[in-house]
């Protein structure tokens, strides 16, 4: 398996391309949105911060502050395929109402994704791309427990600890200086270690981008997520499941031909999460490097 995972990086030896000019379109795109370009390799580092609250305030509430550092590599063997690997390192500070704290550093779940462009209006500088996405999350995270040995709530785990297939589709439209990205992704967790079963999660993203200058673009969008409930040892975790919609605002900058920076703030707009569960502001900042 390791050899298979390493293969794209070996094949990509010597690949070099300009982040925006190689595909005939000047749109700034972060990994996953772009028209694939044969032999293109991109590496990215992303930091995500989020807050989460579970339980009743002043009674049994647990607060989570999480920073997720993701290191990823993406390789396009042809101008229709992109393969990517992403590994998160997760830092979590879990605070209980009695001021007890658990400060945890742990690896999350390694994620492999393959994206295939199944339809485009033209090969060079396409204006419309339709892609299918498939992938798998590997159970590289472990189940975290509190001081009493009780597993933390599913929402507070670094990963699902299970083999989770991913399937979805996306559509991208380029019309300089505008672009639109729409995707629909499903994650289908299997039974994890420690007898956990995270529910199926469906995630929809709609993103509009305006790029008034070559080096800077603005993004505005919405992310919708709906989750099935999770189970621990066959018992439903009451604070899992439901749906949430975020409004997102982002910036994408190109300080150098090979370096792309991006920043996104996601604000919860509609929360219909089950149980006592409130998600807070989520911030994402990242760097993409064209190798």
């Amino acid at each position: 398996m390791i050899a298979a995972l390493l293969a794209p990086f070996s094949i990509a030896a010597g690949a070099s391309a300009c982040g925006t000019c190689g595909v005939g379109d000047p749109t700034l795109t972060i990994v996953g949105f772009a028209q694939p370009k044969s032999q293109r390799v991109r590496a990215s580092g992303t930091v995500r911060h989020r807050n989460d609250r579970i339980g009743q305030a002043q009674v049994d509430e647990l607060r989570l502050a999480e920073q997720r550092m993701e290191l990823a590599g993406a390789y396009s063997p042809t101008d229709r395929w992109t393969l990517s690997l992403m590994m998160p390192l997760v830092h979590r500070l879990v605070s209980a109402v009695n001021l007890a704290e658990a400060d945890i550093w742990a690896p999350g779940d390694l994620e492999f994704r393959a994206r295939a462009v199944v339809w485009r209006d033209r090969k060079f500088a396409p204006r419309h791309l339709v892609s299918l996405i498939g992938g798998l999350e590997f159970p590289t995270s472990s189940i975290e427990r509190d001081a009493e040995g009780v597993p933390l709530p599913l929402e507070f785990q670094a990963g699902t600890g299970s083999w989770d297939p991913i399937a979805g589709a996306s559509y991208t439209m380029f019309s300089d200086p505008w672009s639109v990205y729409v995707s629909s992704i499903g994650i289908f967790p299997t039974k994890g270690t420690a007898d956990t079963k995270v529910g199926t999660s469906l995630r929809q993203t709609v993103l509009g981008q305006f790029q008034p200058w070559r080096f800077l673009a603005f993004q505005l969008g919405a992310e919708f997520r709906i989750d099935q409930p999770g189970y621990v040892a066959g018992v439903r975790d009451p604070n899992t499941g439901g749906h949430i919609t975020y409004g997102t605002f982002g910036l994408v900058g190109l300080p150098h031909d090979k370096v792309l920076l991006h920043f996104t703030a996601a604000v919860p707009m509609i929360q219909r999460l089950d149980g006592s569960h409130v998600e807070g502001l989520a911030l994402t900042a990242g760097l993409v490097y064209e190798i």
Partner: protein
Amino acid sequence: MRFSLLIAAMLLSMALLPNCMRVSDGIEVDVAYKPAAMPAAVRTDLGYRVRLERAMIAIGRVELIRCDNFVLDLWNFVTAARAKAHEFSSPTSLGVPLVIDLMESAGVPLFAGTLRPPPGRYCGIRVIGMPADQDAEGLTDENLDMTRNSVVVAGRVEDEAGEDQTALLAQIWEILACEMRFDRPLVFDGPVVESVSIRIDHTKWFDGIDFALQNSTAVQQRIIENVRSSLQAVLPNVEDGL
């Protein structure tokens, strides 16, 4: 090529990173029951001598009471009266049912559990006596009747002269909510470990009862009142740290 391999190696090595966890305890309150030492016979305030053969109490829940939240306390009190043991535990309540054999455990502290309350001022503690769950700690084949009763007392009563003996049997099925005030408020504003002992003085359970004149219903009612008043919450002495 070198750069690509470096990224791949970093990705895979991240997956092999060990977990690192640092846990700091917050506010903790250890709760223990401390039954009074049991003499061979209890002399009541009206002069009767009670020779106990059985004295058992089943406790379903223990809750800390905030000083400054009368409405919440009232709501908790109402909901507690409807609750069943093992229903839930929270940072300010322990829902772990326990059957205490007062004849066996006299003078021996029984650890009830640890409460993990949020910061605040706490002025007392509430103990809910109620019939035990099937999986209550201390429940045995010999005391299965505690699944139907909160308190069971059995023995013999002698009059003051020691001439007349009558059998005593009280089986109380009612839910008994006993609220006790601390002699000083517990003020929590940072991580700390505190302890509370709940003394059970069952030698007072028969005070005020005239066994010769009162019928069994009146005796049982008086025992219920005495059980409530026999519980006392004791904080460790601040000076000696006990």
